């Protein structure tokens, strides 16, 4: 739980985020948090409320705004994911998402680099003067100097995985190997961008043109912690519907009832220009910038304190 000092630091982070996106020509938008049909995703369970759902991400409405003619938009909002509670998870948390048209996931990776340089300069105080940009986390210095390390999922499995990527996918061990063998190595000396995920693991991401086995999706890791997830957007309504149907089937196989198909989103998708979008966990970002070990220490109240 944050009290005055911590809340002031969190306020400074939020202000620096808005400052960055406004300075880059982004429009801050707000979209409804209660939805009749959330994005069907196999392993993200929405909270039901009065027949509708609390958003698990503002993604669908953000993309509809791009389809309606917006170029660069961002939003800082609350999201809810049922059953997610741990030292890095809260069932209600703050998300930052930004979207840009005529861009792909590589542009978002560059955005991440620039955003963190801005944050370090805005929040770093004395450290920002002179020396190279860096974060101090748990007594170690994490250099923010560009370019950050970029490593594909396949390379990471080859380098650190106890089983191969192929075996991990076949035996339903992808998350386990990622979590146990790979994540602890990511983002130690400097932030790491893990990219090109297996196609099946990017329900709303565009497949790579020259390698349809992988989706143009990446995750930003710092100090072994996943901070942001971005991708080049899938803009084909037929393919998107097919993937949603597959996700809904997985939800059923796990014994849960999926929500309805988000039809207005699929209808708008046909008008979406090439675009890219990314979601960044603000509470985890605050955790990192405040140099605390649990997400509980980055928010005003945890659910247990209510």
């Amino acid at each position, binding site marked *: 739980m944050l009290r005055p000092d911590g809340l002031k630091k969190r306020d400074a982070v939020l202000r620096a985020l808005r400052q960055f996106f406004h300075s880059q020509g982004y429009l801050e938008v707000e979209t409804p948090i209660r939805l009749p049909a959330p994005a069907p*995703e196999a*392993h*993200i369970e929405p909270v039901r409320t009065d027949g509708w759902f609390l958003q698990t991400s503002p993604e669908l409405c953000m993309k509809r705004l791009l389809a309606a003619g917006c170029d660069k938009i961002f939003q800082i909002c609350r999201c809810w994911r049922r*059953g*997610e*509670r*741990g*030292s*890095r*998870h809260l069932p209600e948390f703050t998300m930052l998402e930004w979207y840009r048209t005529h861009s792909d996931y590589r542009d978002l990776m560059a955005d991440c680099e620039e955003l963190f340089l801005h944050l370090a300069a805005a929040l770093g105080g004395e450290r920002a003067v002179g020396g190279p940009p860096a974060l101090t986390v748990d007594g170690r210095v994490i250099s923010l100097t560009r370019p950050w390390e970029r490593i594909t999922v396949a390379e990471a499995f080859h380098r650190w995985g106890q089983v191969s990527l192929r075996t991990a996918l076949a035996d*339903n061990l*992808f*998350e*386990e190997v*990622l*979590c*146990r063998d790979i*994540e602890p190595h990511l983002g130690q000396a400097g932030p790491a961008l893990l990219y090109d*995920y297996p196609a099946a*693991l990017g*329900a709303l991401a565009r497949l790579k043109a020259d390698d349809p086995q992988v989706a143009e999706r990446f*995750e930003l890791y710092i100090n072994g912690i*996943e901070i942001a*997830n971005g991708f080049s957007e899938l803009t084909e309504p037929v393919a998107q519907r097919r993937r949603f149907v597959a996700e809904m089937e997985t939800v059923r196989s*796990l*014994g849960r009832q999926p929500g309805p198909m988000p039809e207005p989103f699929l209808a708008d998708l046909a008008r979406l220009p090439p675009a890219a979008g990314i979601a960044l966990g603000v509470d985890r970002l605050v955790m990192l910038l405040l140099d605390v070990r649990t997400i509980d220490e980055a928010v005003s109240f945890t659910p247990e304190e209510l």
Partner: protein
Amino acid sequence: MFTASDLRKGLKIQIDGDPYLVVDFQFAKPGKGQALYRTKLRNMLNGNQFERTFRSNDKFDRPALAERHMQFLYSQADEFHFMDLNNYEQIVMNREQVGDDVNFLIDNMEVDVLLFNDRPIGLTLPNSVNLNVTKADPWMKGDTSGSDTKPVTVQTGYVLQVPPFVEEGELIQIDTRTGAYITRVKK
């Protein structure tokens, strides 16, 4: 019945017929993927410890554990006899079930016996116990070897480090959870 989402440090669950204590717990969910419930478990029967990761759909039985307040009567060979002071019912535990608590168990001591499916599997002792020092090297006044402690043996055969002034025949208080010396006790 417990599900994976009930897992937390300190929870006791049953797997393949054995009771386990969750000694460490972490929730993880990498990259929009499946939730992982990573645990470190200790088998409450044999003390074996290992790591295991569960998924959302895993379920566990609640182990039939109970505690019973009893008095330690005596030990004979490798058998330890306890009695319920309310109904005078007696039970016997073996050396393995008593474990390291044998170091602090003295006649007439009141303890809590942990039962699994009505079988005794472990003890909870009072936090401290007073034991007689049966063997100690004499304290040489003016000893300048610089040693802050010395080993002594107590009536149960347990050996521990104590300050140099503790002498044979004295009564000392020991923390049963850590096995460490607390203080001298006047008889």
